[in-house]
């Protein structure tokens, strides 16, 4: 995995990467640290005080071998691989990861005696490490293997018995071969610090020491990251076990669509099959972490797939048909329906397909389309009202937080890890929540489930005087989630939260603390291209479909709404899985999943990112934009594009801002209330978390065996917890 040198001492206010206009840059820079003059291998350098010797060496471009040290975890200093010589200092080699630099320090990183010392450390590490590389899944991407080659001794001299350790149970995702463990404690530190769970520990002492869990699955949505962190083959991916070698797979860079974070991923595929998904480094989005659903649901891509068009016969059974017949049938029905057509887009749709679908409908004279299948209510014309304005990287600067109707741990585990980081670094003392109380891995006071409590907060009538706390904070944040937005009074809660944000001085020139925590990867994109139109776009659409006002409904990858409403419509399902909506569809047009097409997704902070196809779609399935292009041609409303690039060019011409990659969209704050300024009509029902299962929330993860195993494991965990 590629790693950028970063300093452990100043992660708190890392600036967003280039491409952000200076006006939007956070005003405060981290306080200037004094510079220190040091010499590394005879070359003089100036480094920031507070760096460790290892970090200073990395800055100088010198690689120091290490096993236990990791940029994003606390320093353990127990592998002793990063030895260097320093003077003035003790006459023996020092562990550079735990040694701060000093003025005038002279560092040697490659003397013959150091080479010897490293050889010695390697030899001792290998004493109890099995020689099972040929059957080890880490082979080819193993730190121990690489460093043994670069720094080790060329043979073993150990003839005694090696120690052996029993396997541990860490849940359905992590396979353990603990004899290979070198006790770097990275997994323990990750679980404690980043994931915020105490499930992994080191038991025993001396030679008997063992990394273990208490024989239960790791209760975290980020647990898969310990596989990447493990420098040896002790923790490997269970679903990927013995599937391929790292050098055999084709590596494609893409964007994750399991949540709205837009995590950067690498898709490893072989023979046209996606074998695994790994995170790619992006400092401002997912750092180098990835949620378990994004990482492990990929086996669902090979199951329950729609690989050819289907249509219902006279007996109402779905039978396979050819594309030609399917398109003719669909075109004829659309033709007949005239303007009485509607479309719903799901949470994983790419920008291009939504754009093409919108154009298809508007060309027919219909404006009935929406991508908020949960019925979330907010004004899609106010950009600052639907973005995660603070931006993911800036979460760590927050010092006060109010969560409304969201469980960030399940809605976006990566975002939650950042909030936890803000708390760990001491900036965020206490978070407050409105909604179902849930364990978010940092202290959070769940004040009430009643939306009325927000009114109290807004008028400072609550016991806690939260508004004062938020106003007093330098970087207050409000995170508004879909559990609140998807209510009938969602738009009122949305407006009210905007008001609270303004009252609490969250929205300033240098800081915007108003955030919507989207769940779907398509959410922001749909707003940007006008696929979402009105404040309450979806519910009226659903009602008019149920009433029979819509003759033809095009459902694109949307399976999680009230499908009974489609009973009176001729339903066309464009999607990749035989999930819920495919069961009620009249025609199924098979399309490509996110790994099978190039596409643009805009994440919750408005970052435009492009993913690449890793494998071809199965069977006769096609990318959505192709299907829609062919359909438009049948309807004689030929759009001005013949390929994806032309589609993008047209799209970018209409929305020039979306042409800029990897740069959050600029959002100028616009009051959410100025249009109506009416009273807030809030319902009395409590704000509850509707999502029951983190692991299976979309067609891909519902088809995944791994996710199903995770679901069972978590249910078991909860059952045991409740029993105790």
């Amino acid at each position, binding site marked *: 995995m590629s790693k950028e040198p970063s300093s452990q001492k100043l992660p708190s206010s890392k600036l967003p990467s280039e491409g952000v206009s200076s006006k939007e840059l956070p005003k405060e820079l981290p306080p200037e640290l004094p510079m220190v003059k040091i010499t590394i291998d005879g070359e003089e350098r100036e480094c920031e005080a507070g760096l460790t010797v290892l970090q200073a060496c990395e800055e100088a471009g010198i690689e120091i071998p290490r096993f236990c040290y990791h940029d994003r975890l606390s320093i353990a200093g127990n592998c002793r691989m990063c030895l260097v010589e320093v003077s003035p200092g003790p006459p023996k080699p020092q562990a550079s990861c735990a040694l701060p630099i000093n003025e005038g320090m002279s560092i040697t990183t490659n003397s013959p005696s150091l080479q010897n010392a490293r050889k010695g450390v390697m030899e001792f590490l290998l004493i109890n490490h099995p020689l099972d590389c040929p059957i080890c899944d880490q082979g080819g991407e193993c730190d121990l293997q690489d460093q043994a080659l670069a720094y080790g001794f060329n043979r073993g001299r150990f003839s005694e018995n090696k120690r052996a350790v029993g396997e541990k149970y860490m849940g359905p995702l992590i396979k353990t071969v603990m004899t290979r463990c070198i006790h770097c404690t990275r997994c323990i530190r990750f679980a404690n610090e980043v994931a915020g769970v*105490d*499930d*992994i*520990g*080191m*038991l*025993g*002492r001396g030679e008997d020491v063992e990394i273990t*869990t*208490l024989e239960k699955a790791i209760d975290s949505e980020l647990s898969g990251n310990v596989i990447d962190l493990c420098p040896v083959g002790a923790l490997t991916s269970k679903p990927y076990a013995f599937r391929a070698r790292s050098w055999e797979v084709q590596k494609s860079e893409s964007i994750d669509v399991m949540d709205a974070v837009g995590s950067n991923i690498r898709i490893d595929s072989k023979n046209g099959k996606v074998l695994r998904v790994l995170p790619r480094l992006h400092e401002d989005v997912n750092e180098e972490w990835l949620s378990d659903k994004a990482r492990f649901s990929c086996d669902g891509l090979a199951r329950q797939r729609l690989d050819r068009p289907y249509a219902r016969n006279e007996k109402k059974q779905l039978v396979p048909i050819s594309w030609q017949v399917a398109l003719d049938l669909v075109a004829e029905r659309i033709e007949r329906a005239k303007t009485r057509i509607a479309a719903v887009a799901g949470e994983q749709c790419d920008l291009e397909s939504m754009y093409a679908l919108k154009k298809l409908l508007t060309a027919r004279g219909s404006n009935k389309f929406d991508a908020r299948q949960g019925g979330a209510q907010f004004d899609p014309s106010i950009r600052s009202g639907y973005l995660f304005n603070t931006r993911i990287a800036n979460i760590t600067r927050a010092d006060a937080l109010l969560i409304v109707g969201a469980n960030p741990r399940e809605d976006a585990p990566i975002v939650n890890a950042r909030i936890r980081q803000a708390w760990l670094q001491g900036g965020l003392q206490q978070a407050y929540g409105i909604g179902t109380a849930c364990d978010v891995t940092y202290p959070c006071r769940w004040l009430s489930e009643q939306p009325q409590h927000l009114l109290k907060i807004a008028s400072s009538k609550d016991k806690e005087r939260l508004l004062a706390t938020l106003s007093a904070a330098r970087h207050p944040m409000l995170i508004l989630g879909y559990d609140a937005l998807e209510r009938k009074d969602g738009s009122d809660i949305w407006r009210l939260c905007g008001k609270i944000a303004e009252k609490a001085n969250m929205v300033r020139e240098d800081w915007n603390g108003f955030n919507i925590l989207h769940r779907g990867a398509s959410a922001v994109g749909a707003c940007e291209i006008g696929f979402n139109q009105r404040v309450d776009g979806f519910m009226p659409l659903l009602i008019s479909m149920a009433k029979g006002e819509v003759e033809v409904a095009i459902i694109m990858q949307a399976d999680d709404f009230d499908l009974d409403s489609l009973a009176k419509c001729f339903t066309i399902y464009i999607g990749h899985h035989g999930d819920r909506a495919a069961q009620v569809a009249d025609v199924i047009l098979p399309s490509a999943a996110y790994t099978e097409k190039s596409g643009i997704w805009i994440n919750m902070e408005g970052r435009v990112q492009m993913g690449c196809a890793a494998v071809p779609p199965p069977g006769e399935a096609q990318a959505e934009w192709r299907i829609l292009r062919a359909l438009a041609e049948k309807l004689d409303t030929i759009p001005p594009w013949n390929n994806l690039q032309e589609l993008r060019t047209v799209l970018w011409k209409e929305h020039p801002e979306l042409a800029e990659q990897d740069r959050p969209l600029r959002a100028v704050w616009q009051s959410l209330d100025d249009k109506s300024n009416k009273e807030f009509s809030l319902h009395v029902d409590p704000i509850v978390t509707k999502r029951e299962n983190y692991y299976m929330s979309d067609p891909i993860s519902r088809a995944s065996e791994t996710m199903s195993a995770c679901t069972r494991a978590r249910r078991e965990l909860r059952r045991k917890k409740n029993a*105790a």
Partner: protein
Amino acid sequence: MPDSKTAPKSFSFRAAFAERAKKEIAKYPPKRKQSAVLALLDLAQRQNTETNCVTDAAMENIAKILDISRMRLEEIASFYTMIHRKPIGKYHVQCCTTTPCMLRGGDSLVALAEKKLGIRANETTSDGLFTLSRVECIGACANAPAMQINDDFYEDLSEKHVENILDNLAAGKPVTAGSQIKRRGAEPVQHSETSLNKRSGYKVS
């Protein structure tokens, strides 16, 4: 490390132990009450005179009292050799076999104890009376060979002493801790030469 099936399902500190536990916790600021973890583990183990170990139920209880995660507690309990997570005998006979004791016959004392108790090191007698272990330096080198049984040291041992001590313990008779040759602390053995004797040739000013 699950207990045997007979292990109690619940645990709470009994009167005197609860008092002690409270006192130990009070030694630290409320936010740092986890610091009392070793004291509480020890108390829990002492209270459990049945199996002389910290049971799972006790672990749960301590974790709750100190607001510490079960895993962290398990790490601490497994690190310290004085805390036992598995049942041991009423008398934990720990024979020292580190250098000074080894030179003075520590190994043969282990062999003797093994023969006498009919078990090997790290095993427990079937009557649950004795657990024998071979340990690293217990810090009584000046009185080597030495062994520790529960809280007491037995020093300047000969094979006969060990036999006597084990016999008496098994019979429930009292035993005298400390030097078995009536030496005071680590004072010179009487009538033997030391650097303080005039005869030794050293001048003492």
